[in-house]
């Protein structure tokens, strides 16, 4: 088991009291594609960040089990974490505009990721970077490698981020809303690319998104989160016929091109769900 989370609780101390954001989440992930969906504030990103120990120090994290490939994350030192982050588990964030260094060329950033984890000369790293850019289907990798982040489009920027994450051959890829900042056409391309690379390399994928239909097309399993709880976990192919009223509510309130609705049903939240 690559990831094993049991009864994870994440809370924040604030001036006025204590806020529990994640309230007992259990997830398991092997070499498969797991999607986490839910509205904003449901705790999906926090769960992924807790797994990489990327939360601020004042965060209160409790769990019965929080393991990455048998390593206990709760007691892992920063040094140990550094051998996991990037090297064994890559993290792709939402907006490439804010994740890339604006004053370094794209190629040198990918090469840096390669060199940090694999060593070797600068020239070898740059060559490897160009190969990686080619692997994420960038047409003119040499030219793109020499350009700065502001000179490439959003979709291209996200490909660069993926190339950078692939450099150390990680076992797990965590993608936190990797396509929400992109156009519909580019969105599908990027997800297809992630899916291909993950299957080819036998990696695990944790895809976090608020877009249910998108996740159902690109994942094997889906966990639906609401207010810090996992409402239900089901096979992605069954998502559109989900039974839980929350999942059904989310699916129903989406407008549809093929099945027009006079009026969109509004989600009614039931306090019973949280019991």
């Amino acid at each position, binding site marked *: 088991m690559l990831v094993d989370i049991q009864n994870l609780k994440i809370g924040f101390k604030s001036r006025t009291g204590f806020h529990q954001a994640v309230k007992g989440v259990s997830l398991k992930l092997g070499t498969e594609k797991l999607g986490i969906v839910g509205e904003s504030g449901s705790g999906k990103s926090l769960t992924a960040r807790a797994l990489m120990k990327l939360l601020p120090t004042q965060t209160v994290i409790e769990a019965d089990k929080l393991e990455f490939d048998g390593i206990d994350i709760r007691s892992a030192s920063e040094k140990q974490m550094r051998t996991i982050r990037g090297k064994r588990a890559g993290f792709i964030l939402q907006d490439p505009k804010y994740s890339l260094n604006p004053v370094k060329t794209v190629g040198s950033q990918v090469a840096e990721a390669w060199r940090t984890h694999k060593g070797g000369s600068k020239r070898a790293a740059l060559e490897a970077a160009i190969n990686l850019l080619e692997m994420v289907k960038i047409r003119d990798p040499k030219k793109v490698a020499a350009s700065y982040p502001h000179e490439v489009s*959003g979709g291209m920027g996200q490909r660069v981020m993926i190339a950078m994450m692939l450099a150390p051959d990680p076992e797990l890829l965590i993608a936190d809303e990797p396509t929400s900042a992109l156009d*519909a056409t580019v969105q599908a391309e990027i997800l297809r690319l992630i899916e291909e690379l993950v299957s080819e390399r036998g990696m695990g994928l944790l895809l976090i998104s608020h877009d249910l239909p998108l996740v159902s097309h690109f994942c094997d399993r889906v966990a639906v989160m609401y207010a810090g709880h996992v409402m239900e976990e089901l096979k992605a192919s069954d998502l559109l016929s989900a039974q839980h009223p929350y999942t059904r509510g989310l699916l129903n309130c989406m407008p*549809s*091109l093929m099945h027009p609705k006079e009026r*969109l049903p*509004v989600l009614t939240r039931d306090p019973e769900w949280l019991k």
Partner: protein
Amino acid sequence: MTIEIDNLRISFVGREVVKGVSFNVAKGASFGIVGESGSGKSTVLRAMAGLNNDWSGRIAFSGEDAPLFRPPAFFRKVQMVFQDPYGSLHPRQTIDRILSELPLVHGMDNIDDRIAKVLSAVALPQTARFRYPHQLSGGQRQRVAIARALIAEPEVLLLDEPTSALDVSVQAEILNLLADLRAERNLTYVMVSHNLSVITHLCTEVGVMIDGHMVEQVTAEDLRLGNVNHAHTRELRSLSVELEEPA
């Protein structure tokens, strides 16, 4: 208010980004513009709203040509709602202050009454009035942005991706609100979005833009049935249809 756009061209420092766009919207109708980022759809909308004074061609409301620089009275008739409710409200002003800006500028009377009315029109509690934007949720903020547009008692609302920053559950509420307001007040909508299902939900006619050209205008019904001509329209449609079908 009928809207006529004829051969609209817009350039930024010599680079043409809108290359001759024409379309008409009847009074009380709603027209949608779809396209990818960089296709020029928001630029068209901003020029219509009078936020860009450097365009050529013809923009006419109710048959009257809009001048390059709009008179103040124009903004009573045409209002715009922006994409990001987090960025479009002043963070240091209360909702009351935000909503009273326009009536003050235009010397309207009974400002207090108007604010109370417009808050209930967008289904916000009266208690929201003396809150700051950061104390409201994303959906509530978008309601404030819509209220700010409505307080001018406009006839045309220009909507720039009004729901793309919101969760689907909140998106449904805002889309319902927009549909109700249009029916109640006989408003004319022009809406920009990259999401075909959102556009076809609210609009009866859709213009597809790519690279500064409006390559096709099609009714929502024809789009649904697949009676489209341009390759780009077909691509956008098939992506949208594919996602709706079970995997």
